[in-house]
């Protein structure tokens, strides 16, 4: 009991409750001092949520070292589990090891995946047949909106998990450049996710994850907690990106030039550049709606009060929000998929026993996607009422994204061509990822040309398209990565039979779901509706999509069962079961507290499979200079 109460997360949650009460009390006091009635739900709840979230971070101990620094105290970097506590407790509190933080990110991401997936199961059941079965429109809207944003949070956490765990290992570094910032980067997600989920309770919201005003300006109060939660999750992206860029640029092992980095590191570098420079815009756009609702600053309010007209104000612009929002939220798509595409490129050579075909082209294609991604946001707004002078250039720039994406596909195919392929579970998921991302990618250009998009926009075709890009670009590669590095993280083998069962359920299930969504979209099914017209003739299609969705959900449960039971089993994994050349596979599993007892030196190319006697990473002899302290 004592141990549990001392956990960072428990202390944080208690502090959050206290902070929320303080924040709410503060507003009530100010209101009373100003001679207003004590209670008005929205400002009181919003300020309470904000103070509570900060309370959680303080209570968990995220800022403790920095507070000590302001008092002039030094705090040596702590290694290993907290003194006198069992080893598992470090995963429930603030810990500075990138390996612990990586696991924290990944597990939290999977938990949110379960939450968001369960919401989808509920409304998929509703949508299995036309007519309203059991879900009223308001609840459906809240579930659908929460499904979207919680999945996005889950993906961002999954990306953070892979980045934090793998990048320092892959470049032969002892840890991330800023371990304390790294811990903060993870922990801000906790109140972020809690606020979004709390938003479902305090009225829910009906805006989808895009939160367009004026609808979001008049939505139920839950929308405010959704906005605040996203703000915190976005902060995590920015902090994580700073850390990753500095780590990658400054902490690589001797001999690891940029073009000798594992390809996943390139993908994460490109991802981090987007996160660092674009995330502010979604934070800004959401904050502006928060302020519009709380303080009446009508940024996006097209109506003018009489006073405002006398003062010569110009009306707010609803479409402005969409520009700000999509300037982040389109590049965000590449934040979700670039790491996954990096995983595909990373794993294919290992299981094909052949060098990655066109390494530099793949590395540069990630950078190209990241950069072009900043110029394409307008394609979400082709029917929003923007000028043709904006629609046409945005169409050209959007279509350009197909070029670097094509380079990746062709290079992957060339990598497996004439290889010696083996098919354990991670490789199966990589191949599934390519096939699913192919559907997602190929269904993109019809959305990118303006005239066809005027038909496809806001239909289920788009739903099918982006679920295919998300599953092919993130979910399948993420699962591949989980299986692939599971022996490294836990030191145990996973169950290969269950892994393959997961694959054989999920891949056909997903194909059916995604192609089904595209098909009913073309027949007239709109996005984000609780009920549809039986005259569209899509009842059968909807039923099949629901069944496919449940098959996917079931297969994910099989994976969790597999991972949990395997981690507790006694079957010890070899240190390098995949015969990989990457540095993290040259050290014991599970990885000791100090990853590299002897510094890594890079002496060759990362993917030189098939070249006898070649080595990528070599451990320097004991006692060589440059050893970590």
């Amino acid at each position, binding site marked *: 009991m004592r141990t549990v109460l001392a956990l960072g997360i428990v202390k944080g949650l208690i502090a959050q409750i206290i902070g929320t009460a303080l924040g709410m009390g503060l507003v009530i006091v100010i209101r009373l001092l100003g001679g207003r009635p004590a209670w008005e739900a929205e400002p009181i709840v919003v300020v309470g949520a904000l103070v509570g979230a900060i309370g959680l971070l303080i209570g968990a101990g995220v800022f403790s070292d920095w507070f000590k620094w302001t008092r002039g105290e030094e705090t040596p970097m702590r290694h290993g589990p907290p003194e006198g506590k069992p080893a598992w407790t470090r995963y429930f509190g603030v810990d500075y090891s990138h390996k612990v933080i990586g696991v924290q990110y990944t597990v939290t991401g999977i938990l949110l995946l379960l939450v968001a997936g369960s919401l989808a199961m509920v409304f998929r059941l509703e949508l299995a047949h036309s007519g309203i079965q059991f879900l009223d*429109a*308001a609840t459906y*809207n809240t579930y659908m909106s929460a499904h979207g944003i919680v999945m996005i949070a889950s993906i961002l956490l999954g990306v953070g998990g892979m980045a934090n765990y793998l990048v320092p290992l892959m470049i032969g570094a002892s840890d991330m450049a800023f371990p304390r910032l790294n811990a903060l980067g993870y922990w801000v997600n906790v109140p972020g996710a809690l606020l979004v989920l709390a938003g479902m309770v305090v009225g829910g919201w*009906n805006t989808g994850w895009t939160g*367009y005003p*004026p609808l979001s300006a008049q*939505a139920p109060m839950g929308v405010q907690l959704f906005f605040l939660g996203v703000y915190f999750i976005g902060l995590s992206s920015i902090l994580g990106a700073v850390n990753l860029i500095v780590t990658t640029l400054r902490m690589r092992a001797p001999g690891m030039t940029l073009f000798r980095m594992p390809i996943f590191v390139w993908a994460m570098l490109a991802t981090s550049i987007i996160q660092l420079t674009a995330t502010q815009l979604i934070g800004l756009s959401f904050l502006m709606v928060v302020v519009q609702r709380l303080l009446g600053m009508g940024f996006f309010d*097209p109506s003018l009060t009489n006073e405002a007209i006398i003062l010569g104000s110009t009306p707010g*612009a*609803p*479409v402005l929000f969409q520009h700000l929002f999509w300037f982040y939220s389109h590049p965000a798509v590449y934040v979700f998929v670039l790491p996954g595409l990096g995983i595909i490129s990373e794993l294919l050579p290992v299981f094909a*026993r052949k*060098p990655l*075909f*066109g390494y*530099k082209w793949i590395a540069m294609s990630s950078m190209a996607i990241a950069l072009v991604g900043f110029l394409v946001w307008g394609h979400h707004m082709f*029917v929003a009422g923007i000028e*043709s002078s904006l*629609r*046409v250039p945005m169409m050209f720039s959007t279509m*350009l994204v*197909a*070029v670097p994406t*094509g*380079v990746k*596909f*062709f*290079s992957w*195919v*060339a990598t*497996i*061509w004439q290889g*010696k*392929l*083996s098919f354990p579970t991670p490789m199966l998921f990589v*191949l599934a990822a390519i*096939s699913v991302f192919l559907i997602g990618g190929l269904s993109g*250009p*019809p959305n*990118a040309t*303006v*005239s*066809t998009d*005027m*038909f496809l*926009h806001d239909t289920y075709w788009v739903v099918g398209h982006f679920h295919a890009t998300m599953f092919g670009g993130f979910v399948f590669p993420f699962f591949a990565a989980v299986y692939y590095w599971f022996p490294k993280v836990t030191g145990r083998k996973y169950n290969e039979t269950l892994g393959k069962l997961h694959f054989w359920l999920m891949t056909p299930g997903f194909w059916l779901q995604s192609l089904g969504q595209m*098909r009913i979209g*073309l*027949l*007239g099914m*709109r*996005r*984000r*509706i*609780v009920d549809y*017209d039986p005259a569209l003739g899509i009842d059968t299609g909807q039923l099949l999509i629901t069944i496919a969705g449940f098959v996917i959900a079931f297969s994910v449960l099989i994976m969790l069962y597999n991972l949990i039971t395997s981690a507790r089993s006694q079957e010890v994994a070899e240190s390098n079961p995949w015969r990989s050349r990457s540095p993290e596979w040259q050290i014991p599993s599970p990885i000791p507290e100090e990853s590299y007892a002897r510094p890594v030196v890079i002496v060759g*190319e990362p993917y*030189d*499979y*098939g070249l006898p006697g070649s080595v990528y990473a070599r451990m320097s002899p004991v006692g060589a200079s440059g050893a970590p302290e």
Partner: protein
Amino acid sequence: MRHFIIVAVLVAIVTAIVTFGLESAQLLPPVASAEGQQVDRLFGLHIQVIAFLFSLIVVFMVYSIVVFRRKRGDTGDGANIHGNTKLEIAWTVAPLAAVLFFSFLGARQLADITAASPDEMVIEVTAQQFAWRFDYPEYGISSAELNLPQGRQILFKLTATDVIHSFWVPEFRVKQDAVPGKTTTLRVTPTETGQYKIRCAELCGTGHHSMLATVNVMQPADFEAWVAQQTAPQPSATGSELGAQIAQLQGCIGCHSVDGSQRVGPTWLGLYGTQEALEDGSSVLVDEEYLQQSILDPAAQITKGFPNVMPPTYKDSLSQEEVAALVEYIKSLGEE
């Protein structure tokens, strides 16, 4: 080399099969506008390219999986090939040319389907939660159903009174958002007579799914007859008849059904004279006074199970006589 010949043949065969499959699957609903026919042509071209690229990648993958799988007991590596710059350049430049070509086609088509024709008819579309209203300035007609003459280009001028909506008739293909505070435009030339539905395509709140309106594309003569009927001097409607017209044009029926079906607001069928349970636990008799108050100040008494989403603006936009007519109409629906 032998591998490449086999794969090339397979790619050709699979492309043919996929193309045939997609074309015979009837992917699109019937098309009913000139703009839609153009959109369908470009979409068809997209589908052909998709069929080819899909087959190209999948055949190469499946062939590799089958032919280049590791033989049992073979622990050796594959060939040490790092890449081929000429190939990389080729598969960068060829897709680049393809996407530029498609963008060019898309730009040209956009110019075509947004071009004005000299005899186009303007229809003003006003969207509100959760109903549509159509004004024909040429004739001075307002309608809750959209009647269109076949073969004449329509310039829709769209706006919204509350949140963003989107005007979409799947058979016309093209869609356009209706944005509060500004006017957006969309051009459609109906080519097939028949009845269609406008389906709001932009999430607009609780009743989004039910924000539909009927579209009738008519022979020009029938359309003229409808216009004549609408514009002919008529004995002005009074009482419940006037109320029914107001309910249509003000969008009341977007939320309140008159046939008992469930929408965002309570149905009006059989409402009058009943005891209505309220959100605060009390109940109220639905009489004239209650109905009038609910129209003018919707937040005053909220019916249980129907969160208040009704605009509070009707006290400004409706005259006293109009409110009375609406009450009269609701009353008439109560007398079963």
